[in-house]
């Protein structure tokens, strides 16, 4: 499904006039400094924060004016950053909450939940309490919930925060292999450059650049937006784009 944001404006959260498009099957990254409006923009997409102006369309339908909350959730699933909610649930129970927007069908739901857990490699953990998992495992469980939701669009809001480096890479590899339409706010520019087909750079609520990582993440832009000096090269291990940084003032 295609995602189209046009002229999206959110007063509280400081998003002003953002146009953004994600083609079907594309993995698009959203990068920018803290407070640039990444999360707010994503909330406008998954129907958690109504924009003051502009339209958000998923597969051509206006998320806020045409679709109900439930219909929208059938199309768009979300994996947000690590949170402490839902601690008392077991893994299977938490994944089952992904079925909320769908008609209840216990037998079919069990099958869908089992498949989602298998997809993220957590099959053996179905009856474990969520609270006892490591950070990386928790995010895989929340990804399984997003899969159980069976949307065609996946929204990631800084899903790798607080994860160790192995868990970060594993999670993004998993998402990458899904080949599902994805819009991801990512903190780590190297992860964004390595996994995203295209990037949008947000600064003070506006899109200041977009395109393939290699075209967008220029030293000039990084100095201007993030205030750091940067060198763009290739990761000798993976051959993917790789940035190295230094503080803004050369000393």
């Amino acid at each position, binding site marked *: 499904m295609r995602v189209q944001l046009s002229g999206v404006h959110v007063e509280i959260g400081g998003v002003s006039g953002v146009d953004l498009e994600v083609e079907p099957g594309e993995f698009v990254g959203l990068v920018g400094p803290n407070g640039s409006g990444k999360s707010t923009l994503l*909330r406008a997409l*998954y*129907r*958690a924060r109504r924009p003051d102006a502009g339209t958000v369309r998923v597969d051509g339908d206006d998320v806020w004016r045409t679709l*109900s*909350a*439930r*219909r*929208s*959730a*059938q199309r*768009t*699933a*979300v994996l*947000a950053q690590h*949170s402490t*909610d*839902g*601690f*008392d*649930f*077991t893994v299977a*129970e*938490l994944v089952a*909450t*992904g*079925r*909320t*927007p769908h008609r*209840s069908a216990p037998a079919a739901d069990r099958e869908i939940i089992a498949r989602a857990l298998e997809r993220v490699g957590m099959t053996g953990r179905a*009856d*474990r*309490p969520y*609270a*006892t998992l*490591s*950070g990386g495992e928790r995010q895989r469980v929340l990804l399984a919930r997003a899969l159980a*939701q069976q949307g065609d669009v996946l*929204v990631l809001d800084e899903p790798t925060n607080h994860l*160790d480096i192995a868990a970060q890479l594993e999670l993004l590899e998993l998402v990458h292999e899904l080949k599902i339409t994805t819009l991801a706010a990512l903190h780590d520019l190297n992860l964004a450059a390595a996994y995203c087909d295209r990037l949008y750079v947000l600064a003070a609520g506006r899109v200041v650049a977009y395109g393939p990582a290699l075209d967008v993440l220029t030293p000039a832009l990084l100095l201007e937006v993030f205030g750091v000096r940067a060198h763009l090269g290739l990761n000798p291990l993976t051959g993917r784009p790789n940035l190295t940084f230094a503080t803004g003032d050369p000393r």
Partner: protein
Amino acid sequence: MRRAWTAVRAAPCPSRTERPQLSSPHLISERRYPLLVVLLLAAVPVLLVAAVTYGAVDLPAADVWRVITAHLTTGRPPADVSGIDNEIIWNSRAPRTVLALIAGAGLAVAGAILQTVVRNPLADPYVLGVTSGASLAAVAVITLGSVAGLGVSGAAFVGACATLALVLALGSRRGALTPTRLVLAGVALSYLLQGATSYLQLRAQPDQLAGILFWLLGSVAGARWSDLTAPGVIVVACTGWLLLQGRRLNALLLGDETAAALGVHVHRFRLALLAVAALVTAAVIAVAGGIAFVGLIVPHAVRLLVGPDHRRTLPLIAVTGGLFLVAADLAARTLSPPLELPLGILTAILGTPFFLWLLRRESAVA
């Protein structure tokens, strides 16, 4: 250096994995859940008959059974039971026992819903100040006399609803209700209303004080069949609706944004839940007074058994809450006869240790 690094990897974040009290899976597995439901439902008629049989005067269980079946089938008392026994069984103990069942179920369900709505384990049906509003109105009628033709129950109901409206107005900001603001508004308003209630108590005549105390601590004594219709209908209808909301309640428990992402219209749903929980609470306390702790401890006890999934907890919470209050009322009548204790004293004696234990458990988690 390398060895140290491996050691760290082998035991990631001990603070997260060492949670023994949370790491136990639910005590009652999904397979055994139906058995638990059947057992609790079977306990309802047994406990009801026991509650009607025992009291200041113990009556033969056979007579109790005859009186109840005669009234239910013919609508008249049986000929072979004395008029006094019939009066005690059918017009005194039976209605108060049924009221205890309704009140316990209603308060427990309302407490469970409010704990989810404000995502605070210490919430109960009174966290929104509803009971303080009801108390003030009830005490005002007891001490100052009827207002606008309302009796104690009617005034309590109106007071509860007015307080809820005020808390919602104070707790919302730009049309959005946030759990923290709601709780703060409810607690702040409660103190104000309690202050006013205390003032009225000071000015009360000595003969009014017992009535005030009984109302504030909660009691089902003196219940008549005609008192049961309104709370009965409201508790049954609201609980029925809530039982259908299990999956959406689960989503709400996971946070506003997750709930929105799962297709729940968070603002609208929260408002509906608050209204329903407050309506149930108001309907119950209007006839039974401010019975404490049922709404706090019953939901937690049930969650400890079967986990947090509302589809499984809510039916059990309703039944357990009803049973708990019937048992508490039976104890209130039989522990120190002929003196009858207010229900609030018993629920507090049972509830406080549990509450403290819960606080310890919560601080261990945080």
